[in-house]
């Protein structure tokens, strides 16, 4: 049995190489990413924790099956997030429906990050309070929401978001800018009051 300390000092990429030799090392990667990916899946798919974990199980099995195809020019995190993103999309296709509204009850972090975004605050000349942004997020288009989740919650840079969503850097920048504009429009339409 693998000792968890065996993994602690190793990079993701080293663990990928070790997993190819010994599948037990894969559990280290799972431990590293299961929490983050569960939250990510819940954020973009409106799943319950149980559904997200079921989906995540499929994500890891798929990752293991394709581990030899891991592109060394990517970060492992981008690669595994990409698989999760694709799995969510494919789940939507299977169910032939996408959630129209996503609830963010458990996502205080997300609201905090968005509220702290200087560009958006500057655009609207206001400081956002986390609670006040909640209803805005629920109305954002899904394609914008995912870009915002990756940028503000997962802390990914544009290059990583590009690798995860498999879109050019320019498109990622556009998505994030449009997301901000859409939020601003919703603010204006709703006449939402924000604390200065």
């Amino acid at each position, binding site marked *: 049995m693998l000792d968890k300390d065996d993994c602690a000092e190793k990079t993701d990429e080293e663990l990928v190489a070790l997993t*190819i030799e010994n*599948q*037990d090392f*894969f*559990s*280290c990667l*799972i*431990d590293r990413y*299961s929490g983050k990916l569960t939250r990510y899946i819940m954020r973009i798919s409106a799943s319950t924790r149980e559904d997200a*974990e079921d989906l*995540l*199980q499929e994500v*890891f*099995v798929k990752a*293991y*099956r*394709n*581990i*030899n*195809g891991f*592109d060394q*020019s990517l970060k492992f995190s981008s690669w595994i997030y990409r698989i999760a993103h694709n799995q969510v999309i494919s789940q939507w296709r299977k169910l032939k429906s996408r959630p129209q509204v996503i609830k963010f009850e458990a996502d205080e972090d997300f609201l905090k990050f968005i509220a702290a975004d200087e560009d958006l605050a500057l655009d609207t000349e206001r400081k956002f309070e986390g609670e006040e942004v909640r209803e805005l997020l629920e109305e954002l288009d899904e394609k914008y929401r995912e870009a915002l989740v990756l940028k503000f919650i997962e802390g990914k840079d544009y290059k990583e978001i*590009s690798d995860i969503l*498999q*879109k*050019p*850097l*320019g*498109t990622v920048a556009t998505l994030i800018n449009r997301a901000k504009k859409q939020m601003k429009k919703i603010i204006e339409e709703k006449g939402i009051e924000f604390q200065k």
Partner: protein
Amino acid sequence: MDNLGDKVLRKIKEECICPKPRWQFLLKDYFIWFLFLVSLILGSLAFCVALYVLSTNDWDLYQYLHTTLVGHILISIPYLWIIFLIIFVFIAYYNFKYTKSGYRHEAYFVVGLSVVGSLFLGAFLHTLGVGEKVEDFVAASVPVYEKIACCSARKDIWDQPANGLLGGTIMVVLDENNFELKDFSGKDWRVQEDDDTLEYEPLEIKEDEEVKIIGEKKQDFVFWAREIRPWKNKGEVRKAKVRINPDE
């Protein structure tokens, strides 16, 4: 209670899930690049035939076809080959997007790359005479091609003696100024030349030579030739007439 890592590993072991071998991923990558290159080459061939068709078209023909120069240009554009070029550019684009790093590039960059690649390669192939060979091959393999090919390459265009256009195959060279011609609908004509008749390189008046003639119908099955052009690859006006009569 099992954590997720244990569940996943148990599933992997129970279902004997193995990583796909590396060669499968490499093969897929190479195959996509191969399709990209094939599309690029086919696009280049389409462009190179389009160039050939444009460069060998009889642009001065409009006056005999009761149309304007603009009208003639519009019907002389090799739409078929341009459509092929566009199709292959988009297939190349589609394949490029599916290469490992294809998503990193904007659509306009990839389409631009495919277009520029096809145009450069096509122009290069044109200088090697590939366009003519491809067109000949397609004309021989696809009978309908001659009906949809460009204006001056269409045989029906040269089957209008009343409008001064006659095309066909030289059957017999009678003398310096007369030969017999079988037109594309199988009728025999006597073609007359005089000192004013222009002949174009690399034409040789000899049996089995396909020619295009611009002139005037004098009477039934007698046609006076003002200009005689080779069926393909019209060059400069020939200064001295060439006659090859096997009977002499």
